[in-house]
């Protein structure tokens, strides 16, 4: 596969290149919709397609007006502010109790392990619309519906399975003799946790936190039901924008979010390499 042998027949040669062309087209399908919105977001007109001026690379065809709109429009600014205040708190809650539970789950003797695991992972599996419906019914009974904390708790619950999965994955390679060594040298469990265990599982914790953050930051369905207008987040604002009057500002917001996900992807990749290096899985 990696290279064409010199004795390949004409048919094999055709298939070799044909297959690559097919794969290229599929990659194009994957990436094109995401990249195409970036140039479109600089459109000087309120259109969703390339104007003749843009195609001619005329500077007049491009402008930053949609970005300006995003940064000055109070609706978008409120939505940005709500997203920025909800996601980090939800992430913090999810990461803190999720990490503790992951450490508990990777001990050698956990009673009812599979049942507990099934419950803890369930927020990731249940379709969002069902979670949203259940939370809407229940939270309105107890007065959390339409409140800031209602949304934060709901988002934290949705984020915890990711923390559990990433942290338990890091703990699989954890050498238990390290905690024993620390204890034998006189450190109490809390000190051992912060000085020995924590630094080693840190990459897993951070990538779990990133997953939890993006879960909350991108989430629309639950916040639509559990939140009220004063908790309108960025995705919610995009959703209403797309459904009612589609304005090109959405493309500017989308481009900013693409930049954010590139940043996130890069961070995760660095963390993964660091974690593998720490655990001695790959040399160098």
């Amino acid at each position: 596969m990696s290279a064409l042998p010199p004795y390949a027949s004409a048919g094999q040669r055709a298939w070799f290149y044909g297959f690559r062309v097919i794969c290229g087209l599929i990659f194009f399908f994957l990436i094109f919709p995401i990249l195409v919105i970036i140039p479109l977001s600089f459109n000087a007109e309120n259109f969703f397609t390339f104007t003749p001026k843009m195609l001619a690379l005329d500077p007049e065809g491009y402008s930053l007006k949609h970005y300006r709109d995003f940064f000055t429009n109070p609706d978008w600014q409120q939505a940005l502010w709500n997203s920025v205040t909800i996601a980090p708190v939800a992430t913090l809650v999810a990461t803190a109790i999720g990490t503790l539970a992951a450490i508990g789950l990777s001990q050698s003797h956990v009673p009812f392990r599979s049942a507990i695991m099934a419950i803890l992972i369930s927020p990731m599996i249940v379709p969002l619309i069902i979670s949203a419906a259940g939370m809407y019914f229940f939270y309105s009974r107890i007065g959390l519906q339409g409140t800031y904390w209602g949304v934060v708790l709901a988002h934290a619950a949705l984020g915890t399975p990711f923390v559990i999965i990433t942290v338990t994955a890091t703990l699989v390679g954890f050498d238990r003799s390290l905690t024993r060594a620390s204890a034998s040298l006189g450190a109490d469990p809390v000190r051992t946790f912060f000085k020995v265990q924590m630094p080693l599982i840190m990459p897993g914790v951070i990538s779990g936190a990133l997953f939890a953050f993006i879960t909350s930051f991108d989430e629309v369905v639950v916040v639509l039901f559990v939140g009220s207008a004063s908790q309108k987040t960025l995705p919610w604002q995009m959703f209403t924008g797309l459904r009612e009057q589609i304005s090109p500002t959405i493309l500017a917001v989308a481009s900013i979010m693409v930049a954010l996900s590139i940043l996130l992807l890069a961070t995760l990749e660095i963390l993964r390499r660091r974690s593998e290096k720490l655990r001695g899985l790959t040399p160098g």
Partner: protein
Amino acid sequence: MAAISEVRSASAAEVMTTADGMPLKRSLQRALRREKMRSLMLIAPLLAFILLTFILPIADMLFRSVENGIVQETIPRTVVALQDWDPASDQIPGEQVFEALHADLVEAVKAKVHTKLGVRLNYEKPGMSGLFRTTGRAIPRMGEGPYQEKFVEAAKDWGDPETWRTIRRYAPQYTPGYFLAAVDSEWTHNGIEFRPESERIYLFLFARTAWMSLLITASCLLLGYPIAYLLANLPMRTSNLLMILVLLPFWTSLLVRTSAWKVLLQQQGVINDLLVWVGLIDNAGRLVMINNVTGTIIAMTHILLPFMILPLYSVMKTISPSYVRAAKSLGANDWTAFWRVYFPNTVPGIGAGAILVFILAIGYYITPELVGGTSGVFISNRIAYHISSSLNWGLAAALGVILLGVVMVLFYVYDKVVGLDNVKLG
């Protein structure tokens, strides 16, 4: 032989102990118990959190799908009085039932809850909402009994035995009514039967959701398999670079991708412009690719494709290239080596990816809502509609419970095929 029995009797006489004189067995058990307790203590906060914020809401939804306390709460005396009435008879109930109804409605009108009961019963029999509203207006000037005639005069539906049958049928605290409605059935005096053909929507919608999810899964497999194959067989450096093209969409916000498709697919959008420019279609014949089934399938295939590629890739990565080489050295041509040797090895990956994509697709809400129009919507959109627009929460809950049941079964299969502990991310 003798030596062994000697050891045995010795150990029976003096039990092995730890330094502080406790029997070793008990000491070990205690240590184990302490370890179990410690792990449970660590898990407890999250478990409590998830139970409170997530499991209880789901349980609440299960409860709501059968809960029906409103009839008993609003007209308690009538419900009791109706027990003596024979629903099979063609006669309306006697004066005592009407007396009870009058007493109940006087209170209900004062508390302004009679319209709510009307709305509830209207789900089962159209016209009930209006009946209760009209009667509510008539109640204050009804005066003294006998009430039977006065009620029938105020709204002639009180003279229809079917009205009373409906009230009697939906009097109990719990009802299967919402579930029946969710599968297009109703409970009439002939027993449980399907609604008339023209009123059936949910079974059709469930079938469409399943069918479209299946189409999306199939197209994800078709597009994902070659990519996973390429990534698994290229040198590490190249495949890591190409992997970014898969992971970037995976990490990009769902709404960003949906809005991208909305922009690309619309009639004045980029794809139609391109086709017109190339000359494949003329300006009048621009393709309608959005707000219909096509739009939903294209957008959702794009969104779910990474979920197919990643499990396939991780399985293909473990298949040794020597298998195919061995097959070829034994005389298989390229196709036979692939189909008879390589492909069967990738079946677990296909299973994992397909179930994952199907589970995710079947519960999708946002994308069908935005690009599906009316012909491309899923059952989730109907659930959302009943929660926020029609306010028929019981029916929304029943539809949700059915969907949840389907997902649970699929998930059980997923657990058997892949194993919960093998869920990996990124």
